[in-house]
């Protein structure tokens, strides 16, 4: 007897199910509904259609002839309005009523549209079907067309790459810190971004959208949280999908995230099955094609009365963007009970990471060379022990025998024109040439090329170039590495960040061969500092790589409370400021108020939750952060100077205020404290500061590299100058030189001891060099000379509160 089967939705799952069912010669009278005015096509291949590598005709999976041959009645472009389960029939939008013996719901999913203001403007589309694809293709035919894609996941990037291939100027806006964060780790995400940016696609990560702008009902641009506007003619939202459960819900089926199905793909109604992206099985929903095909097979068997069971399996992902070779499968989060095997080849842009647990492969992420992806995927699915091939596993199935990893790979991979010695402008190629010409020791290299002959911070690198060039003939002296994550020293890392223009932490980890996925508490703050000091405009400071005090802009105390210290420029305050400080101390029940050695007032014992509020109050009185917690400019201590003091020779207070206003907010390798004394009696104790200025009748004596902490040391004279302007210029140049060259957590006196005061003097006496240092300092300050308290009180106040408080019993 012929039974009536109605299928709602002609997607990839239902198409495959019909194939299985009808190819077996089962006797069914099938009616296929589809809301899209066409039949089954391979939705996965829309991206090649968008990029122009395929046509729509090539991706159709079932054409009219197939439907006719198999006796499928097609009702495309028609929607089913209602399911009447009691009488086993469906009603169409146009009022037709059709009975069924079995019903299959395959309504797929709906794209998720973020309800931003303006999301309903014309020109705001998802990336889901052929209509969307055609809109994007049409855009490519316009002159100088611009598009914005929200979402840096699989679909968003395929849309962006396709639009770019059509000649559209594309910007990808992604909320998370790296692209495809669900499939890739940070390192692979970095390489992917590098590839896309290299092609000319703009990529903004960690970026939030505020609203969609429009004119005459059509989209004109996207405004970001930070106020930037990205003009566009088309805005594609590719931020995720939601199972389309409307019909199932209306019919009263069990529905949660998706329509509930059992292992046989049967819903809570025995006559109704469901397959595809609309189903929920054991709490999971599905977006990739492999499990959908498996579901189709099981549903066909169930309809035929044969036993079959749907089992969820591991899935793997590949991005369908030509030239972006990436692969991910399984679980690749790191962990205590897991081992990582990481392989990086910086020169080829290859990154591979295998995750092992109990000697079994459980996850793999690969970028740049994914040839072995399916082999690794097989190992993940098998779950067999890989103990015997563990040592050579990462090299793939073809590998026989082993070779030890090369610690010199990063240096060996440098191009010949990479600058090794910044002081003397010596490139790798010149050093290699000198070695070929007979230089066999570091002294020879210094003598012939001048590399490492000045400040000496590149010595480690020069030695590595020698080791890489001379091989076994050269024995590397042991050097102190930054931490266990790398063999490189601080100096090496700093130099390589500049030479290779590394502008993000994942870039450093990848290109310099870090052995951990994302560093540790020792290297992260250091690398974060080096990046923001070298690339102030490009690099975004990472709060999660900062110690607690710099992250919270306050000093943590032993009991977990914080101290709050507003800036008092040059130690000068006013009755109004003092009243505001007193009010704040009362209002927030500050247990201790202390006058500090840096001529300021410290409020000790403030609760973390209260920080944004107390900052706001102090801001209202015109005060800003004193940075008493930072590796940055702390205070400029002054005496009263010639305005009041009978011995004063210059306006030491005024100079102190000017210096503090120039330098505040800047990040430095360690803290920096200044002092300005109005006469050699030195009441401001300037001669034990990082920079100490002593005023004399003839002008200003600028001393540097003093210390009054673990070590006590008098400053050394840098220069004597006649005017205040010169004193400020020399001071800023010195601070910038220190910012650019010192090792993280070296105070200036330690750094000067390493490079030598003569080298510092030589650099700073060059007028052009001093001006350039001042210019670079000002560029950095254009970003950082801002009050972090105001910023955090306004934008990040909620981060200081508990995420939740569940100590109170809910009302019954």
């Amino acid at each position, binding site marked *: 007897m012929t039974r009536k089967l109605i299928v709602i939705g002609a997607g990839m799952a239902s198409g495959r199910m019909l194939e299985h069912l009808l190819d077996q010669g089962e006797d069914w009278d099938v009616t296929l509904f589809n809301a899209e005015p066409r039949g089954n096509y391979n939705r996965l291949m829309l991206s090649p259609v968008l990029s122009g590598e395929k046509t729509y005709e090539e991706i159709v999976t079932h054409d009219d002839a197939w439907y006719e041959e198999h006796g499928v009645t097609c009702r495309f472009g028609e929607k089913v309005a209602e399911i009447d389960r009691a009488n086993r029939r469906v009603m169409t939008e146009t009022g037709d009523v059709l009975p069924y013996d079995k019903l299959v719901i395959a309504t797929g999913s709906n794209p998720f549209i973020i309800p931003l203001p303006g999301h309903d403007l014309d020109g705001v589309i998802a990336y889901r079907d052929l209509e969307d694809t055609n809109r994007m293709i049409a855009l490519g035919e316009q002159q100088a067309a611009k598009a914005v894609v929200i979402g840096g996941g699989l679909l968003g990037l395929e849309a962006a790459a396709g639009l770019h291939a059509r000649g559209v100027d594309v910007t990808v806006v992604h909320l998370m810190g790296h692209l495809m964060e669900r499939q890739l780790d940070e390192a692979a995400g970095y390489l992917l971004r590098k590839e896309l940016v290299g092609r000319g696609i703009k990529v903004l990560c960690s970026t939030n959208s505020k609203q969609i702008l429009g004119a005459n009902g059509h989209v004109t641009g996207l405004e970001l949280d930070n106020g930037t506007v990205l003009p566009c003619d088309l805005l594609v939202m590719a931020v995720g999908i939601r199972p389309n459960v409307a019909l199932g819900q209306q019919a009263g089926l069990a529905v949660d995230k998706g329509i509930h199905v059992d292992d046989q793909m049967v819903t809570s109604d025995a006559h109704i099955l469901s397959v595809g992206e609309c189903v929920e099985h054991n709490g999971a929903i599905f977006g990739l094609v492999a499990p959908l095909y498996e579901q189709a097979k099981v549903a066909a068997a169930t309809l035929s009365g044969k036993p079959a069971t749907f089992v969820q399996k591991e899935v793997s992902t590949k991005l369908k963007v030509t030239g972006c070779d990436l692969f991910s499968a399984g679980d690749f989060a790191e962990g205590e009970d897991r081992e990582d095997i990481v392989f990086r080849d910086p020169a080829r842009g290859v990154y591979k990471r295998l995750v092992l647990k109990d000697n079994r492969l459980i996850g793999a992420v690969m970028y740049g060379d994914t040839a072995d992806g399916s082999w690794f995927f097989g190992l993940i699915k098998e779950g067999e022990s890989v103990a015997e091939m563990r040592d050579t596993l990462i090299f793939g199935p073809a590998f026989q025998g082993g070779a030890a990893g090369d610690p010199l790979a990063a240096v060996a991979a440098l191009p010949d024109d990479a600058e090794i010695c910044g002081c003397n402008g010596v490139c790798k190629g010149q050093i290699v040439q000198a070695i070929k010409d007979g230089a066999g020791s570091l002294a020879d290299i210094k003598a012939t090329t001048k590399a490492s002959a000045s400040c000496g911070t590149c010595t480690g690198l020069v030695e590595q170039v020698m080791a890489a060039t001379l091989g076994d003939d050269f024995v590397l002296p042991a050097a102190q590495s930054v931490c266990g994550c790398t063999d490189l020293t601080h100096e090496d890392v700093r130099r390589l960040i500049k030479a290779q223009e590394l502008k993000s932490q994942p870039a450093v980890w990848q290109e310099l061969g870090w052995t951990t996925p994302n560093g540790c508490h020792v290297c992260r703050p250091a690398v974060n500092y080096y990046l923001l000091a070298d690339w102030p405009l490009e690099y975004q400071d990472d709060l*999660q790589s900062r110690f607690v005090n710099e992250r919270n802009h306050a000093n943590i105390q032993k009991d*977990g409370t914080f101290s709050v210290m507003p800036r008092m420029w040059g130690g000068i305050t006013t009755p109004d400021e003092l009243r505001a400080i007193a009010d704040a101390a009362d209002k927030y029940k500050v247990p201790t108020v202390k006058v500090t050695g840096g001529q300021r007032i410290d409020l000790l014992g403030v609760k973390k939750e209260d920080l944004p509020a107390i900052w706001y109050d102090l801001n209202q009185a015109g005060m800003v952060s004193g940075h008493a917690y930072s590796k940055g400019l702390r205070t400029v201590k002054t005496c009263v100077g010639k305005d009041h003091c009978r011995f004063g020779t210059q306006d030491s207070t005024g100079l102190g205020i000017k210096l503090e206003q120039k330098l505040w907010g800047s990040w430095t390798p360690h803290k920096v404290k200044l002092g300005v004394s109005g006469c050699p009696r030195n009441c401001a104790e300037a001669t034990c500061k990082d920079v100490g200025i002593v005023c004399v009748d003839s002008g200003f004596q600028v001393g540097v590299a003093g210390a009054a902490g673990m070590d006590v040391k008098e400053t050394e004279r840098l220069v004597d100058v006649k005017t205040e302007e010169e004193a400020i210029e020399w001071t800023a140049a010195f601070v910038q030189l220190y910012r650019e060259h010192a090792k993280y957590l070296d105070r200036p006196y330690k750094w000067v001891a390493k490079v030598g005061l003569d080298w510092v003097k030589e650099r700073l006496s060059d007028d052009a060099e001093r001006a350039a240092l001042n210019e670079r300092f000002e560029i950095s300050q254009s970003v950082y000379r801002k009050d972090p308290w105001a910023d955090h009180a306004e934008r990040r106040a909620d981060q200081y509160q508990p995420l939740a408080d*569940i100590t109170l019993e809910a009302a019954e």
Partner: protein
Amino acid sequence: MSWIDIGHIDDVPLRGARMVKTPVGCIAIFRTAEAEVFAASNSCPHKGGPLSDGIVHGRKVTCPLHNWVFSLETGEAQGADEGRIATYPIRLEEGRLMLDAVAVGKRSAA
């Protein structure tokens, strides 16, 4: 088990942490570089440092006061230090963070 919704995963920064007040004390919710979270005591057994203010690296956290390092999975102190922090079951459900009510001292909801 019954689960209490305490917030969304995006409320916890990548490689960061947030704190939750519960009847059994303050609990830190840690997030690694992935969409992966852990819950453990917020208090370092050494001198009581607030671990949610520490640096999260890999599946570990470093205490902000004296740099003790703890595994977020086992709660064990790493390296030469000896000690342990309590860990708590936490689930991720469509981006929502769910703590086990019983484990954090809430009587299960009726």
